[in-house]
């Protein structure tokens, strides 16, 4: 199996391996870049549901207001899709340039999903162009236009699934059997069927820490990895991929529908446009967000169970399990159906490590160091989710007298006021939950790029990633974000008609 303490190859002339300093600096620009990309793509993934719901209602009820709402909302879909596509291209370039060792991942386990993602990407881009340019052109059969939108939705979701499947494989390297447990992380159970050649993995894991990503610069060396895997589709069969996809899709719907609600609430409160028109949109977007909010705990629960099963050290850190172990009645109830399960802490996990397993120890050190942050981030997400559920239930006061009265009593405000201001609170919390959720997921995986197999210092570019280079890239990334925000401002705020400004009192 893979050596737990790699031995240096004598006479090695390329000193790229174990470049922690460069990896830490490079990580900063990657974090900013991915969050900037995520800001845009979350609209591309989540917002179509709102747009297509508005359009479908408009067609069904033959109500021009809904169709107009859908058409105006589709502009945001288009802008953010374009920004997401270009920032995605940059993230991809950044991945292969800055984290060039990850090319080995793309060339093996991630190849098939990323290639399918390319196909999905082109389906999306072509159909979204068709969708945006053919609004109101299907006079006889308006459903045809919705079908094009559903085609975009298919492309978007296929794309999201494939990208998230790759990320999920980095969390849970499905298809490696017992390799992870037998090498660095003994608490990890068997990860599906073993479709990776252990001898080839041994070569990769032994040489990467010594030579770093420079390994890939030798065509001859790369040929040593021939027939690395027998199943290039394994990443999409990963159980973690399904849970990650569902959780993220719902998160995207929640964030974007609450943001749309907040925008419409802003218009209502400031008196821009017709109030009835704005309320129609607000009700739909809030309803879509609420439905997704109700489904999210189910997806989150599945993901939590997988974390417990496959990444126990991260689970302990996020749940705040003490190093010596302890009780957590709520988690115990959810996982075991009783309140008394005793959870083993990181000290127990450390006791499982074989002598000389420095990476296993490094993993536990990282989990323990990050534990307070992970716990805070994780529970920021959970508490935000709970408040979102309360807001979502409360919003049904628009339709139910019982809930209306309940909201009145509990919050001492009218249901309309609750929904208007609740949409601002909801969008802030939804963003917070998303940011915190991803931060805890990625931070928790430290120091691994692929959990239990490849550390992130091993895949960074052999070049020195200097602070100046990183600062310049971060400045550009923030510039792109600001340009995108500015574009949204120009379309959705600057063009608001001041003649109609008045505002209503709630």
């Amino acid at each position: 199996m893979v050596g737990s303490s790699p031995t240096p190859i004598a006479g090695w002339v390329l000193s790229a391996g174990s470049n922690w300093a460069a990896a830490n600096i490079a990580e900063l620009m990657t974090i900013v870049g991915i969050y900037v990309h995520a800001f845009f793509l979350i609209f591309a993934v989540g917002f179509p549901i709102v747009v297509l719901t508005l359009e479908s209602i408009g067609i069904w009820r033959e109500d021009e207001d809904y169709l107009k709402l859908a058409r105006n909302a589709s502009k945001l879909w288009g802008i953010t899709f374009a920004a997401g596509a270009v920032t995605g291209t940059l993230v991809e370039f950044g991945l292969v340039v800055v984290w060039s060792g990850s090319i080995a991942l793309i060339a093996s386990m991630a190849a098939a999903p990323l290639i399918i993602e390319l196909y999905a990407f082109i389906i999306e881009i072509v159909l979204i162009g068709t969708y945006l340019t053919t609004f109101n052109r299907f006079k006889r059969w308006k459903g045809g236009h919705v079908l094009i939108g559903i085609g975009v939705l298919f492309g978007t979701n296929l794309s999201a699934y494939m990208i998230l499947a790759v990320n999920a494989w980095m969390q849970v390297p499905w298809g490696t059997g017992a390799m992870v447990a037998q090498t660095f992380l003994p608490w990890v159970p068997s990860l599906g069927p073993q479709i990776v050649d252990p001898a080839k993995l041994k070569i990769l894991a032994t040489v990467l820490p010594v030579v770093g990503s420079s390994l890939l610069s030798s065509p001859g060396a790369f040929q040593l990895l021939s027939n690395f895997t027998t199943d290039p589709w394994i990443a999409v069969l990963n159980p973690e991929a399904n849970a990650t996809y569902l959780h993220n899709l719902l998160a995207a719907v929640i964030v974007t529908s609450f943001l749309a609600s907040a925008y419409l609430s802003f218009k209502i409160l400031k008196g821009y446009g017709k109030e009835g028109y704005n309320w129609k949109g607000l009700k739909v977007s809030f309803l879509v967000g609420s439905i997704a909010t109700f489904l999210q705990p189910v997806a989150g629960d599945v993901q939590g169970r997988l974390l417990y099963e496959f990444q126990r050290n991260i689970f302990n850190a996020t749940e705040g399990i003490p190093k010596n172990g302890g009780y957590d009645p709520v988690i115990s109830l959810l996982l075991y159906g009783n309140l008394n399960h005793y959870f083993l802490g990181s000290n127990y996990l450390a006791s499982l490590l074989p002598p000389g397993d420095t990476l296993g120890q490094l993993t536990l050190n990282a989990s323990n160091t990050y534990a307070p942050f992970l716990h805070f981030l994780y529970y920021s997400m959970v508490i935000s989710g709970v408040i979102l559920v309360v807001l979502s239930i409360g919003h049904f006061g628009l339709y139910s007298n019982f809930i209306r009265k309940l909201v009145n009593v509990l919050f001492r405000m009218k249901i309309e006021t609750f929904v208007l201001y609740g949409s601002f609170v909801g969008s802030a919390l939804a963003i917070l939950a998303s940011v915190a959720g991803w931060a805890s997921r990625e931070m928790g995986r430290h120091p691994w790029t692929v959990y239990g197999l490849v550390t992130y210092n091993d895949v960074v570019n052999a070049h020195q990633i200097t602070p100046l280079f990183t600062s310049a890239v971060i400045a550009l990334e923030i510039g792109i974000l600001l340009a995108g925000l500015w574009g949204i401002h120009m379309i959705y705020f600057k063009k608001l008609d001041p003649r109609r400004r008045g505002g209503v009192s709630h």
Partner: protein
Amino acid sequence: MFLISNVFWGLASIGTTFFLHIFFVTVVLGLSVIIPVFEIIGVAKREENFIRFARRLTSYLVRVDLFAGVLATWLTVFLAAYWPSLLYIATNVLFYPISLAVAGIMIAIVSTALYWYTWDEMSRKVHIAVGLFMSAGALMVAFGMNSILALMFYPYGVKTSTALGLTFFSSNGLNPLANPVFLPLALFSWFVSIAMASLIVLTFALFRSRNGPSDEFRITVRTSKIIGIVFSLLGLVTVSWALMELHDFSQYVYQQMADRGFVSIVLILGISAFLFSILSLSRRVDLLFAPIGAFANYAFLMFFEISSNTARYPYIVVTGNTGIPADSIINPMFSIPSILPLAGMAVIALMLGTFLLTLYLAFYVFPVDRRKGTSDGAL
């Protein structure tokens, strides 16, 4: 058998994507350069029609840019999935030129978005400055990316080392920029792109001016013609330079091209493109020769790219009269399932058809200037 299969699919996928991508990036590069030129002329001459025309072209640029970006992603992922060593060598050995290209992408994206959305929203001088950044970004992308092709023709400025009986390639700083094949290739791609885009724009303007009395199209024709002629000539000069450098430094490629008569064909196409662009000066036949000139420039570019890149086979990287063969650089980690590349080709064919239909709808059935804003102008 396994490796042959992977080489076949690897070459088919990367080849198809490369030649589709190159069309779109050529248009993007050319438009990114000539649009600010029209705006500058408009400001200098105080001629609003130039500015209006530049704005119209920008709306088309934005659409094509998106498609070019998608295909760039295809290329990157195909390289990583099928030719990982090549991509690694490109990103590592060519760290500086590729970083320059990535910086160019970032600058181009931000400035194109700003340029489009800030029309009439900021002072004209600042807007022109943004446009010039857009041009610079686009030129930087082509400049940096051509270093990959130059490296494959003549791996200059590459540090090699051996260990465990294996050869490793690493960066030699900025030296790859001094590759003698690099500069003519980069300049050729710039000039032909500008020539082709200006002749496409000319065709568009001529067509629209014949179908309506708008000054916007009539008045910009002369500028497009001049740009087309000058850059067609520069394209011819730089391709000759590139061929000479290939002759001196990449003998295998040059010999393969010469043996098949491709060197002569490249030069004939370059001369034809130049002559057709000159013929477009005549007002009597300009509507005929402008599109022919645009097509000739496209054929010129594509034929040079296809003939020179396929001349490397069976090598991927040529070193003098030999090189690194494709089957030693192809991804050997898994057997590429046939469904993967076949599905890609089917999707791209289907979606290209849909894309062209969309362009038809967007350009002719539902052009941008006929669009109306909503009363609210917002959600």
